[in-house]
């Protein structure tokens, strides 16, 4: 019983991180139909910006805010100056381009910050809470992780459902031509979409780094899990991404706890294959008419 609780709590925390990463992928997919392979190094480099500030003696929260803001700026710049040139080109161009960005940002980080492990602080405790006389697998930082991802989800829903900007962003994502005809500045909305996605990506970077080690490649493993989580929820659906992240986190944690941790990467790929075979639109796919 205690092992089950431990596994579930670990899975939830892990799932929240995957959810944040998947959310970043989904936001970009929805807006521009591109899988942003460069999401991981973009998050990595903003985490390094936080680390530099924290190492210089500033508080964790200054670094945290700086990472999110630099994510916002980086996302906007990447869309405006790199992705924008892809308009009307083949999809494979986007894949190659984001993979290229992946390598470039990686190399830059290694050059600037050094390709070695550095420890990253956490703002809350990393010891499990005490319940009675047992320690459970939920830490202060874990609670912060879960709450911040839920918070981001709520903010995004409010933005998309409740504001005019959100409405414009959705219209641009779903039907660019009609949005233009209705006076929506589609280009700006796409830049904003990439910027927001990069902020969420940066958040996932900070959450993974917290209390652990950062290295130019520390986010790379998350790409696979984030991608599986996004596909699991349906690439089009932000709530799906969050649910996908949590389901994936729980499943992988159960595999790790009861079968063996060496099987975790394999399990994630099995889940990916199963989803693609059984429900290629994702667990939360709605039946939509095909656009011809």
């Amino acid at each position, binding site marked *: 019983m205690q092992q089950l609780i431990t596994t579930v709590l670990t899975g939830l925390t892990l799932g929240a991180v995957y959810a944040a990463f998947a959310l970043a992928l989904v936001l970009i997919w929805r807006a521009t139909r591109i899988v942003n392979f460069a999401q991981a190094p973009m998050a990595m480099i903003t985490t390094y910006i936080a680390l530099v500030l924290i190492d210089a003696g500033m508080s964790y929260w200054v670094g945290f805010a700086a990472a999110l803001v630099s994510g916002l700026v980086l996302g906007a710049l990447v869309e405006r100056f790199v992705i924008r040139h892809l308009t009307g080109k083949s999809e494979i161009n986007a894949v190659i381009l984001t993979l290229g960005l992946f390598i470039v940002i990686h190399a830059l980080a290694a050059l600037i910050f050094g390709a070695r492990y550095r420890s990253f602080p956490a703002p809350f405790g990393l010891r499990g809470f005490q319940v009675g006389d047992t320690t459970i697998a939920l830490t202060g930082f874990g609670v912060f992780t879960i709450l911040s991802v839920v918070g981001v989800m709520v903010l995004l829903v409010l933005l998309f459902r409740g504001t*005019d900007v959100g*409405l*414009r962003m*959705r*219209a641009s994502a*779903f*039907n660019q*031509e*009609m*949005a*233009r*005809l*209705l*006076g*929506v*500045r*589609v280009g700006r909305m796409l830049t904003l979409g990439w910027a927001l996605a990069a902020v969420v990506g940066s958040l996932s970077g900070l959450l993974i780094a917290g209390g652990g080690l950062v290295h130019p490649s520390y986010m790379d493993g998350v790409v696979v899990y984030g991608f599986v989580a996004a596909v699991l929820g349906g690439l089009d659906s932000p709530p799906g991404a969050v649910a996908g992240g949590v389901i994936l986190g729980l499943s992988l944690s159960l595999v790790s706890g009861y079968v063996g941790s060496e099987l975790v990467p394999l399990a994630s790929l099995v889940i990916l294959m199963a989803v693609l075979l059984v429900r290629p639109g994702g667990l939360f796919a709605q039946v*939509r*008419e095909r*656009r011809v």
Partner: protein
Amino acid sequence: MLTVDDLTASYGPVTALDGVSFEAPRGEITAVLGANGAGKTTLLRTVSGLIRPTRGTARLGEHDLTSVPTERMAELGLAHVPEGRGVITELTVEENLRLGALGRGRRGPADLDRAYALFPILAERRGRSAHVLSGGERQMLVIARALLAAPSVLLLDEPSLGLAPRIVAQIFDLLRSLVESDGLTVLLVEQNARSALSIADRGVVLNLGRVVVRDTAAALAGDDALRHAYLGF
């Protein structure tokens, strides 16, 4: 008034519009008629900036629309209802309407209510996904949405396509009354020349991208040779 002068546009080597000139006067419905492939849709898409012409101008007031980005057309008072796919099906009915109202002068809930009064069926479906609407309801939605942007010029591409005659008549009656009460200028592209000429003030007949004839609707409808050759009735 919308003035089109020598407008020429091509898809690669294929010339789709070839020196098209005509005027669509304020407070009138101008029908653009012709067979499939005559260039009717290309004409509308060139006027609203979705296609850039290789030559010629389309003037609205002091603006030459051929150098205005498509996203600024709504501000200038031009609304374009494209054929068939104008409804954003992933949004709700109300969100589609709100999107139209975001354009000029940020219209409020009162304007939405006016749109609902015009099309009560949309009010019933306001919270539902636009995806569930029937063809006629979708056509009402795109027209209501276009009107919410308070346009001075309305470009309509095949509003009758696939609709029951009763609904077509209803939509055309509404157009007629808007033109007469608000001085709206309408450029109406129609395959169904007979019904278009029944509400239009004047018509332009296109064939293979060129203007064959421009005249009043009554004169066009009365010209038997023209009707048989180009209008198919």
